[in-house]
């Protein structure tokens, strides 16, 4: 894809996202903000799942620690917004570094189980420790945004939406930059064949840790934004349901595309939201949908559409070749 075409597409989508709040009711403005935040988590997961081939089933820990880091900074230190976000990022990055180091020793299914179990450790600790709010979690007031020359309140959902949009676009561009950098190419080489990447002379361990830490950074950002949006942090943020959902969103959208997982998040959340107004136990259908899409859409929405387009182009070409 040409760079110019990419920037035009990006500008169109960005334009749509900028005008979106004016077209939506208050409820859907909040909903769209949530989609962007969860989409950011799925995108961060895609960096390791789709690009490096590491299966993490503990991204809820990175998300939740980002959330708790930000919430604790506000509750205990009366931190401002930027400091709170920075604290969230630091916590999740530190955790990502330590789990990333385990990935040196443990591979495959075992690593997946480690991510799951370490997320459960923090889930349990948050549940049981009064210092972190215990079962009730933490409630707080959101500090206003201070841009130096102007200050505005985040209680206004539209302001919050633009804050999230800013971080979302920034993260997307950064992630895209990472995947297109030489380092990103090494990530993909590791996904394709770890042994080969090692044999060619890359320090696979270093790259795997780096990928995990970058992913942890953006997951933490998404957690921090989520806790600020809802003005509370809850142990449920670390539950393995969230880890699983993040993987599902990524799969349904299409791994290894960055925007696919965001799309997947949006699709699943919109379906869930519209089902929930019709049926009480809509999660039954969501569960079924997960199973069916895993079986029939292995490449996700984006991958399947790409295949179709590609196939059509190829058939056309064959047809023309045959005619000529």
């Amino acid at each position, binding site marked *: 894809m040409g760079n110019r075409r990419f920037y035009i597409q990006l500008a169109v989508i960005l334009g749509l996202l900028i005008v979106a709040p004016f077209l939506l009711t208050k409820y859907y403005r909040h909903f769209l903000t949530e989609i962007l935040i969860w989409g950011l988590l799925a995108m961060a997961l895609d960096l390791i799942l789709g690009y490096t081939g590491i299966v993490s089933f503990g991204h809820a820990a990175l998300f939740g620690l980002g959330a708790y880091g930000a919430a604790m900074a506000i509750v205990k230190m009366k931190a401002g917004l930027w400091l709170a976000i920075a604290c969230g990022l630091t916590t999740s990055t530190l955790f990502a570094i330590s789990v990333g180091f385990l990935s040196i020793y443990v591979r495959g299914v075992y690593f997946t*189980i480690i991510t799951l*179990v370490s997320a459960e450790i923090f889930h349990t*600790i948050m549940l049981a420790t009064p210092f972190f709010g215990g079962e009730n979690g933490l409630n707080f007031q959101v500090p206003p945004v201070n841009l130096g020359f102007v200050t505005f309140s985040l209680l206004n959902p539209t302001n919050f939406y633009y804050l999230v949009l800013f971080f979302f676009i920034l993260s997307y561009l950064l992630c895209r930059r990472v995947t297109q950098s030489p380092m990103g190419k090494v990530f993909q080489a590791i996904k394709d064949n770890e042994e080969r990447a090692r044999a060619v002379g890359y320090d696979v361990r270093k790259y795997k840790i780096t990928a995990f830490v970058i992913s942890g950074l953006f997951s933490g950002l998404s957690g921090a934004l989520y806790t600020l949006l809802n003005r509370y942090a809850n142990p449920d943020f670390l539950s393995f349901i969230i880890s699983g959902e993040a993987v599902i969103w990524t*799969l349904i959208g299409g791994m290894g595309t960055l925007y696919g997982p965001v799309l997947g998040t949006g699709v699943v959340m919109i379906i869930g939201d519209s089902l929930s107004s019709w049926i009480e136990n809509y999660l*039954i259908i969501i569960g079924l949908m*997960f199973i069916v899409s895993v079986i029939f859409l*292995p490449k996700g929405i984006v991958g399947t559409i790409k295949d179709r387009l590609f196939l059509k182009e190829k058939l056309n070409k064959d047809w023309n070749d045959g005619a000529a």
Partner: protein
Amino acid sequence: MQALNGLVWGMIIALVASGLSLIFGIMDVVNFAHGEFYMVGAYLGWLAIKLSNSFWLGLLAALASVALIGMAVEILTLRPIRGRDPLYTLMAMFGLSIFAQQSILALFGPLAKEVKEPVAMKISFFAFEYPLYRLIVVGIAFIIFVFAWLFLQKTKYGVWVRATMQDNVMASAMGIPVKRVYTLSFALGTALAATSGVLVAPIFSVYQTMGLSIIVSAFIVVVIGGLGSLQGAILAAILIGELQTLSSVWISPTYARVFSFLALIFVLLFRPQGLFSISKRR
């Protein structure tokens, strides 16, 4: 007292974990929904006990129906994605887990169900009384393991299973109906979980997130015992059961859980093949 509780809890985990281990060893499937079979087993057991008024009949009915459900699940969801990246089976089972929990919630409602102990007698030791039923649970679990072992070692199907576990391509070339082995093993594994769910019902109550509370322990046990090893799973389960219950004498049960999680991470770091597995080619 706590040591006995640890043994009971260990045996309960062992039943769940051995099924998990069996399924992983044979099919290479990390069954995330395994806890759900335990939970569904407990609910069906509760229902069957209520209808039949007999604990043991209820146990059998729950076990048989979960085995059938397990077969259906294997044929409908796992068979079509066999051979794909393990990530897909993991996620299919995750979807199943949500589906099962929510269906049970819709069918049985959010209230926890109680099951009466079929044997109310208490045995008195030196200074304290202990419910006989819990000891019976240990006995039943033990008998099941003996049968499972005999089954794997002495029967034709057991030979098939072990052959498939070693090398499924070769097994299939030798004329072993590998697909059927998969389906039956999955059914067997889930039935073990269901048995555990029914047995535990009188000790704790039956609720729809009970699967979640055991699955992580079961994973720990399976990894510590060595994936795919039955004996390892049982030994590790008793170890973890004791660790969780004994340490909860001094620290709160939640931290006791954290303790066992840390144990897992250390085992993985220093003996990734598991504590009890002697050698397995991979």
